[in-house]
């Protein structure tokens, strides 16, 4: 093949300025032709998004209708912003918002760093056999059904003969009602999440760490860097990009709390801190069969999510990170 004289792709954006329109257009077509394989590669994915994500988008409109499955889309009546009015006008809205956000924030603050730290710890292990064993072990809880986790939580924490309270009573003489106390609800949920998901969460960081050029470490050692400095200057930067991306994408989920887990741990005594949007919609959904209502709430969550994702992406870019674009 001929050696090309144009700047190679991947070395930054190509200048699109063209002296005349026609020359610019030919240039553009030439570029398209040259990159045709790239566009071909994009085609299946594009098709997928169009068919399976964008064609069903009309479902968003259900938020503005009183959708009844039997009547179908066209015959169900329009209700405008009715669902939103009910949603925002609900006297418990503030409580729900508060619970949802606080839980999400706790998750971000306490859970998010754990897989990272775990991955870094694992990275320091030199015996491959040990490392792989631990990796496999910590990956298991992700697969245990939440129902079992809730059940075991009950067994450990109940005041009626539970293990933890048994010990507490023996050594301090009093018990703590973890399961019913509003004060313990959030810590309990976060601890459950940490137990269940950190192991699986390390995988992506381990993958990033695996991509680090080993020669960098060797060079650093020769320069006299100790382990901390290696960590700070080589290891951490190698996963920085991954962390930032995960954080940004996480922002889109700030209104989601993992319905099943909360629903299982919710009870009348901790409802005031436990009830979040997801459980609320589910509860409304049973009596109402409410597609429209849950679509409306979903729409609200999505709007907030988009704003946060784009916002945090912009912020990341300001700090010189790559961002998701």
């Amino acid at each position: 093949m001929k050696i090309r004289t144009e700047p190679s792709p991947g070395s930054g954006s190509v200048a699109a300025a063209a002296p005349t329109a026609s020359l610019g257009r030919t240039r553009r077509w030439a570029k398209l032709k040259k990159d045709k394989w790239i566009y071909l590669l994009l085609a299946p994915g594009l098709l997928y998004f169009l068919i399976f994500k964008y064609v069903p988008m009309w479902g968003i409109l259900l938020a503005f209708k009183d959708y009844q499955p039997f009547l179908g889309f066209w015959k169900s009546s329009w209700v405008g912003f009715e669902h939103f009015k009910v949603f925002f006008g609900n006297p418990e809205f503030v409580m729900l918002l508060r619970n949802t956000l606080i839980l999400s924030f706790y998750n971000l603050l306490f859970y998010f760093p754990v897989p990272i730290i775990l991955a870094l710890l694992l990275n320091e292990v030199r015996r491959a056999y040990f490392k792989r064993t631990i990796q496999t072990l910590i990956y298991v809880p992700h697969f245990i059904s939440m129902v079992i986790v809730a059940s075991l939580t009950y067994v450990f924490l109940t005041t009626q003969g539970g293990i933890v309270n048994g010990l507490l009573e023996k050594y301090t003489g009093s018990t703590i009602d973890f399961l019913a106390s509003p004060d313990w609800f959030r810590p309990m949920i976060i601890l459950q999440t940490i137990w269940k998901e950190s192991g699986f969460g390390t995988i992506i960081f381990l993958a990033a760490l695996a991509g680090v050029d080993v020669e960098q470490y060797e060079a650093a050692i020769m320069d006299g860097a100790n382990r901390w400095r290696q960590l700070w200057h080589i290891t951490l930067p190698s996963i920085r990009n991954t962390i930032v991306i995960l954080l940004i994408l996480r922002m889109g989920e700030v209104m989601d709390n993992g319905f099943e887990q909360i629903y299982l741990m919710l009870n009348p005594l901790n409802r005031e801190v436990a009830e979040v949007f997801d459980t609320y919609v589910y509860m409304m959904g049973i009596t109402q069969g409410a597609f429209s209502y849950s679509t409306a709430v979903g729409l609200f969550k999505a709007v907030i999510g988009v704003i946060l994702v784009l916002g945090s992406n912009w912020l990341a870019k300001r700090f010189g990170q790559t961002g998701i674009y």
Partner: protein
Amino acid sequence: MRQRKLKSWTILAASAVALASLAGCGGDNSNSNSNSESAASPKASPSGSAGQQAGTEKPLDLSIMLPIFKTNYPKDDGPVTTEIEKRTNTNIHLEWVPNASYADKFNITLASGKLPTIIYVPDVKNPSFVNAAKNGAFWDLTGYLKDYEYLSQANEVILNNSTVEGKNYGIYRGRALGRNGINYRKDWLEAVGMQPPKTIDDFYNMLKAFKEKDPDKNGKDDTYGMVLVKWTGQWASGFDTIKLWFGAPNKWGVADGKLVPEHQTPEYLEALKFMKKLYEEKLINQDFAVFDSAKWNDPVVNNQAGVIVDVTDNAARLDDKIHAALALEGKDNPDVHYVDNMIGVTGDHGLRALPTSGFAGMLSIPKSTVKTEEELKRVLSFIDRMNQPELQTLAGYGIEGKHYTLDGSDIVPSKDAALLESEVEGLNQMLTFIPADQGLKVKQTPLRLQTTKIQKEAEQYIVPNPAEPFISTVYSQKGQQLDNIINDARIKFIVGQTDEAGLLSAFETWKKSGGDDLTKEMNELYAAANNKG
């Protein structure tokens, strides 16, 4: 560049809209149903006479959508299914849906427009069903039932309970009405030297003795009276039964010809105070508000609790479990019953029992699939005929010799659980048990016989919910929330997190959050129903 961007956006948008409108159109409930399984046979006389000979007309093709509770299921060509088809002159296609997702599948089926011949409706009050029924999705069966041998014997009260705006859009699947009562450890009662309780005070004393007198004789102070859970649904409804003993109504009471919510009656408060007393004296499990309802039988089996207020048929199950546990230790006595049950105890208001609604869902017949009245009558005839005792036995237990053997007139089911599950179990979901379960039964231990007896007897003492048949818009929108206000408040009161003032203020909140609207609407429905005569 901007021009090109605009152009590509337009193309994208246009194609999306085009595709969307295609899909949207397809999504309408177009009643042009391609379900080829609705055969019509115009000449046949479809009255439900039981002796109708097969062979005079083509078998009726029908498809039934039912929930499956196990992982194995009877097949269309299984021996029991085939036998049913032979005897009812039908060709059955079973559409099994895992019960965990039945509600979603139900809604999707409604939306897709392709319904089976007979569809099980889990919740008659669910708005998507109500709306569909009101819009003509299902046949109104109210006038047809009288023509059929068994269906004509349907229970008036239950029929009424299962109506939508006064009409029956399906046939209810009958269940025992008087199912709730007290289950208790008989051996414990004997150990503390007491008689079965008759009054509320006796009941209290029984619980106290169970806590204090070491009824399981293990020398440890590790027992308590009664186990309770956080649910307040139809089962696990301990408190809902107990409150009746004090004279409180069942959800709605009638005073001066008007409906009054149960929590606004003084008797309700009295019942709550009783529960609080039980809690404070540690006669009920201290963690009931968070107790995992899947396990609530365990304390009784594990010698921790002695009483469970629940459906009385649970007594037999508890008994079986206790036998199994003791057998493990080699201490079982198979001839003795460890558990006993009773309808209830009396306060100042006589014996009162908590009824169930009397039915578990309905079988409905969609108009889009069953297009003519002729065919409808044939379908009804099938449902009716399934109430024959022989067919009830067939669908419930299978074929004699293969799935069970007979010991006199008692059924002894095969021990091959897998066989039963893949050929028999689940078929009883299509039975309506009208007027009752008249098929053969498993050998009844004395406890099971007693259970059947007291469940029938309880029917005279049940306190019906006068608002049971009403479908309230307020409830559809806010019902769950309103219920939570009351339920949370009463649990907090019982455990001592709030006092009586707090409880009453929660009741006030209920009123202001929509409770008053609900009461008003219920009363309007009540008045309308009573005026109809």
